[in-house]
């Protein structure tokens, strides 16, 4: 039994943290926040060079062929850094979908591009969580319809989308967003460090993802993404807590550091509790994901619920610890707060995962599985 990352994985973390300290300081994050760039392209290239996008992509498709645990470490560090790059859309969602359901040719064509950072992909949350409610239609290989909201949709080159064909059969399609028949409209987001867009397709040439005719079961990809997002949220929670602690030690009121007041102290303790529970649950999710264990549905939902609560609490209360400066544009608190609220919504909100978690526990109890 070992409930922690290996020393190799911890080394990976250290080197990525070093890279991010250099390539993703708050000045860089603010370039995206202020809308000066849509995302941080030099950082994206540096991450590609580091191998971050390809860490869980097999070597035959241009990746490093390490594994999902290594991807958890990367997710946590990118979360800490509030990295202004479309990593989660491209790597947890798009690449995992292509890997899981793409044809051999599609994998060979697309995955090396993702691993090398040459292409960006996305899959809208609603499409993934409830594909049967899609309003997209495919007719003779051409896609028509509108996706009201796609995270990272403004910068993605490709999207995986569910659509109904002429005969009403649901399937996944691979659409090129930069080609003819595809348009996008930017949407302002509560977290401008990641772009959002609505996507509009008019007879856009698409190809079916994979060779089959059956709509695949997406739940495993959803659960994998939930675990990886939980690590991003965990990283963010930890960073927000650290910001709160730093300020509480530094700021003086009534002749004392404000961290010596119980009101502040106990708020920080509660943040620490939420963050620690989230970490333990994220590890549970990581183990279930990496080993393909039957507890993955429960573990993923647990990790997602716990991490969402923790990041939202830590980011919100980091502002409160900061007092007046906490809600100014110039202090970084709101960058964490924005990200915490965006990540809470990006793959089904908390209310959805709460419901899923209990359903899954119930199903486990019925089959005697959990």
């Amino acid at each position, binding site marked *: 039994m070992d409930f922690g990352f290996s020393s190799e994985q911890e080394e990976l973390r250290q080197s990525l943290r070093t890279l991010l300290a250099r390539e993703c300081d708050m000045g860089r994050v603010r370039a995206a926040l202020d809308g000066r760039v849509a995302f941080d392209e030099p950082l994206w290239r540096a991450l590609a060079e580091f191998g971050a996008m390809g860490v869980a992509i097999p070597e035959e498709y241009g990746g490093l062929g390490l594994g999902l645990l290594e991807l958890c470490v990367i997710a946590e560090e990118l979360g800490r850094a509030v990295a202004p790059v479309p990593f989660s859309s491209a790597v947890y969602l798009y690449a995992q979908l292509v890997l899981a359901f793409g044809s051999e040719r599609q994998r060979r064509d697309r995955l090396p591009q993702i691993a090398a950072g040459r292409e960006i992909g996305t899959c809208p949350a609603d499409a993934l969580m409830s594909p049967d409610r899609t309003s997209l239609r495919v007719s003779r290989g051409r896609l028509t319809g509108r996706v009201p909201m796609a995270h990272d949709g403004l910068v993605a080159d490709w999207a995986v989308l569910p659509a109904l064909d002429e005969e009403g059969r649901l399937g996944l399609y691979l659409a090129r967003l930069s080609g003819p028949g595809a348009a996008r409209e930017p949407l302002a987001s509560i977290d401008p460090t990641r772009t959002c867009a609505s996507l509009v397709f008019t007879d856009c040439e698409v190809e079916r993802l994979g060779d089959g005719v059956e709509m695949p079961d997406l739940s495993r990809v959803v659960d994998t993404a939930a675990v990886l997002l939980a690590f991003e949220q965990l990283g963010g929670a930890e960073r927000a807590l650290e910001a709160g602690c730093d300020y509480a030690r530094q700021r003086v009121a*009534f002749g004392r550091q404000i961290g010596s007041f119980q009101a502040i102290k106990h708020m920080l303790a509660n943040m620490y509790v939420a963050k620690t529970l989230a970490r333990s649950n994220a590890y549970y999710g990581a183990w279930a994901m990496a080993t393909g264990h039957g507890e993955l549905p429960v573990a993923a939902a647990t990790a997602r619920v716990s991490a969402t609560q923790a990041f939202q609490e830590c980011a919100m209360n980091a502002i409160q610890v900061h007092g007046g400066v906490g*809600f100014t544009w110039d202090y970084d608190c709101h960058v964490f707060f924005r990200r915490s609220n965006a990540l809470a919504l990006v793959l089904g909100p908390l209310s959805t995962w709460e419901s899923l978690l209990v359903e899954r526990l119930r199903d486990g109890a019925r089959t005697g599985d959990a």
Partner: protein
Amino acid sequence: MDFSDTPAEAAFRAEARRWIAANAPSQHRVALERSSFGVLRVGGDEAEKLAICRDWQRRKFEGGWACLHWPSEYGGRDAGPVERLIWEQEEGVYGKLGERFVIGQGMIGPTLMAHGSPAHKRRHLVPMASGEEIWCQLFSEPAAGSDLAGIRTRCERTAGGWRVNGQKVWTSGAHYSDWGLMLARTDPSVPKHRGLSMFIVNMRSPGVEIRPIRQMSGQSGFNQVFFTDVFIPDEDMLGASGDGWSIALTTLMNERQAVSSSMTTGFDDIFDFCLRFDWRGGKAIDDPVVRSKLATWAARTSGLRFTAMRTISSAARGEVPGPENSILKLVAGMTMQEIAKFALDLQGAAGMVASPEFAEEEGKFQLMLLRSPGMRVEGGTDEIQRNILAERVLGMPPDHRVDKDVSFAALMQAAGDAARRS
């Protein structure tokens, strides 16, 4: 226990209603209804907005409806708390045009009445009531927020008056204000609460520089104000030298009363939204989770409303409203934060969208999310409100104070050391 109008109250209400119907700028009604969270949607640029606000204030003043509770000699109406409440109810959305005058009329005016010289009252109160002159409050500083008595702005003696150097922060409306009420340190050699004095500052004086503070919501209602060798004539000190702290307490007491009856929690917004919004196969309001949350927020909102009403009743019986009003902001701030978060959850991934033209309710809840953290800090943090309730209402002993009997100069030294050590 009678929540309805007495005959006299009903007559006052009818009179107010008639006057408002005849005089209010109804062309702005729709824009005012859409105004919330500090966004005033009337007029174009800031100057035009201000002109519209001033115009309504001037009309009220001329009609005898400005500053109802002020003495009539200063432009008020000598009205009681219940009449103020009735006016507020009748004025409705047009009240939003008065927000720029609240600091002057609600806090600083009463302070001048209590502590100003006859000349101060003559010079300042009527223009304040008519909206001709706008005031701001220059109290907080970067190193003196919750610990207000820790302010460092220095006023030093000079020929015929004082020379001010320092920096204020969180000053609402400094950029359109004519006058400011400023707390400054006149004697650093005594303990912190004792070396302060209160001044009236002309905001157009040379050496006053105003920089807006951009909030996380993108709005800029607050400012930093820098003073560099600003001259204040002797006669513009309020009270005596060293009286600053006790005068500031009067102002802050009035602040708590000024905010009291107009606290919004966002409940009406989320309730209306849940009535209409489709969620989990029905309207959101029919879902038990939504109901449970709405019920708690409804009870809190109702409780705040009737707590304010009870305060007004007490005031009408001649009791002086106490620090119990601290609950209003405390509860409203927390509640609004919860509501905004849940409203976005209901919207799912689309909750991320802040563009008014694409987001639900024109992005109201997204704005609420970004405004609400400020509500828990402005005008005293949640933590300060709880201290006030526990110490002044429940009689809990104050926290141990290390800064009470030390000279301010020595304290600054020690505080710097502590922060460096950590």
